[in-house]
């Protein structure tokens, strides 16, 4: 584990995370010093662009492009916000918890450097309420950074001032959507907002706002310190994407866990070399590449590179990059029913297809699971996949819910058909 090869995790300590002194002795806050003393804000954004950093929250949007939409310079608003999406709640995802509990100063430093790039006046870490330990550790790190002069007015003698707060939520999955997150932070019900205007123009309290995922941000100080060429080289030519990625595996495997690996390693390497393969006596049935809202892939897809473009070409999304594996003892209907129950419960209820369509899909799936489905149920599910799909709903919640459902029907149609009750045999006279 070194700074050169596993920058995000080499300073992780889950038992006692590094204090500011120890963190500083391991290059901590060096990126803040370098950015503020040697670089203009635009230089930081340019470097991140050259590094080809893409969002690690699931969508893979280029980070520098997001930042590039923020008004800059003399005429720009004085109040601008950097929000860290630390509302990790995508089922099957457990990477941001590790970064925040194990190296809280890394995220604080990342917020400062990214905040400098967009000249934000304030940052908020939007943390899910259940992450109690992460909240304590981040609060402590912020207080230490403040005392050391890395936060506050005219920090490190520059004309720039930056304040940072932890904001803890009170549940629900939907604040993970960036505009719903803004509504939630404003103290409202977390329903998504219409775009445009995009948050970079009118976000939190109507001011320019950038929302970045925890893992995305944590890459920024390393790019500033070691440069874009180094960052591009981290993926070792395995992918057009750069850097490392926190990959993980959950399900009935021998060694479930999360590991920082070069971007674009194959799913097989993650599952077999790192997670040790399936548990004794179990076979891999199918897998979700990166969270509940990604399409199932099959064992024959294991040799694909785990990067945004390759997984998209196979008909799914890399999402958060943490694999959920389903073993051959499970009926696909039970797994999809579980997933759709989650999406139905977590719908904010704002738009009709999502609010009414998702519970409908759960009822149909539960009936099929019991072997009490009716002829036509499968066709209704397929219709729901279309009616809840992209472009039909207010936000990406329902389209995300459709992904595991449509792919389950594609690969396991026979299991769905087997759930339809046989009509009672009619006595023929």
């Amino acid at each position, binding site marked *: 584990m070194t700074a050169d090869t596993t920058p995000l995790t080499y300073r992780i300590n889950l038992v006692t995370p590094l204090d500011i002194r120890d963190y500083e002795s391991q290059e901590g806050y060096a990126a803040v010093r370098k950015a503020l003393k040697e670089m203009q804000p635009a230089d930081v954004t340019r470097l991140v662009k050259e590094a080809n950093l893409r969002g690690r929250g699931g969508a893979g949007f280029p980070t520098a492009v997001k930042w590039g939409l923020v008004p800059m310079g003399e005429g720009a608003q004085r109040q601008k916000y950097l929000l860290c999406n630390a509302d990790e709640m995508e089922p099957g995802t457990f990477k941001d918890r590790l970064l925040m509990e194990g190296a809280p100063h890394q995220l604080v430093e990342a917020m400062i450097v990214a905040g400098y790039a967009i000249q934000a006046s304030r940052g908020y870490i939007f943390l899910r309420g*259940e992450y109690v330990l992460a909240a304590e550790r981040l609060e402590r790190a912020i207080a230490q950074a403040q005392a050391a002069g890395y936060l506050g007015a005219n920090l490190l003698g520059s004309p720039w001032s930056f304040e940072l707060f932890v904001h803890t939520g009170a*549940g629900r999955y939907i604040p993970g959507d960036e505009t719903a997150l803004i509504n939630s932070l404003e103290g*409202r*019900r977390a329903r998504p907002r219409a775009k445009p205007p995009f948050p970079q123009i009118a976000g939190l309290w109507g001011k320019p706002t950038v929302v970045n995922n925890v893992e995305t941000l944590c890459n920024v100080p390393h790019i500033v310190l070691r440069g874009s060429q180094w960052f591009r080289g981290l993926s070792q030519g395995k992918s057009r994407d750069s850097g490392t990625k926190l990959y993980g595996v959950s*399900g009935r495997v021998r060694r*479930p866990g999360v590991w920082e690996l070069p971007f674009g390693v194959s799913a097989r390497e993650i599952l077999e070399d790192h997670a040790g393969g399936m548990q004794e006596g179990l076979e891999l049935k199918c897998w979700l590449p990166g969270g509940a809202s990604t399409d199932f892939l099959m064992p024959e897809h294991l040799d694909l590179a785990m990067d945004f473009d390759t997984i998209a070409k196979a008909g799914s999304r890399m999402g958060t990059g943490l694999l*959920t594996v389903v073993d051959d003892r499970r009926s696909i209907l039970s797994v999809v029913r*579980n997933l759709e129950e989650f999406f139905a419960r977590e719908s904010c209820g704002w738009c009709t297809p999502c609010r009414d369509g998702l519970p409908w899909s759960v009822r149909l799936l539960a009936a099929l699971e019991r072997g009490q489905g009716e002829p036509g149920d499968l066709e209704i599910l397929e219709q729901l996949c279309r009616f809840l799909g992209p472009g039909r709903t207010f936000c990406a919640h329902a389209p995300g819910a459709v992904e595991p459902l449509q792919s389950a029907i594609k690969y396991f149609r026979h299991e769905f058909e087997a759930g339809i009750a046989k009509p009672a045999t009619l006595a023929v006279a």
Partner: protein
Amino acid sequence: MSTAAAHPRTGFSRDAEPYALHADDRASIEQEMRHYEDPRAASIGALKIVQKRHGWVPDGAIPAIGQLLGISASDVEGVATFYNLIFRRPVGRYVIKVCDSVACFLTGYEELRDEVCNQLGVGFGETTVDGRFTLLPICCLGACDRGPVLMINDETHFDVSPRDLARLLERYP
């Protein structure tokens, strides 16, 4: 003229008991308000502060919070009823939240849920008669490599097997 008739289904009364925010809570909420450009943003924090005191948010606290933040009681209630970690009914001394998302589902959620329900004699959304435990489902707790996972109040427990459950619950008298 107001009537104190309780809602037939929920038991809530529209005319809440008079409620005064505890001085400490008021101070904490005011401190929270300083983190934001707009006091409304402290609404979730305020609800959590009041909940910490009572275990839930009593009806009368809703308008009291609204008054302090300068927003309507219905706005506060809208927020309180949206988020699942804000409780608008009394709960037990300990709230057990069992993760029912996909990774735990694949690693033993159903067996754990059945055991919890059995031992407590309640289902989701219910409180034991002795007022000790309330049982709720919760979304993915971000520890999928150590499932099944549950939380008891603020503490998270990993790799919980139905066999260990009785001993775990003993720690919460």
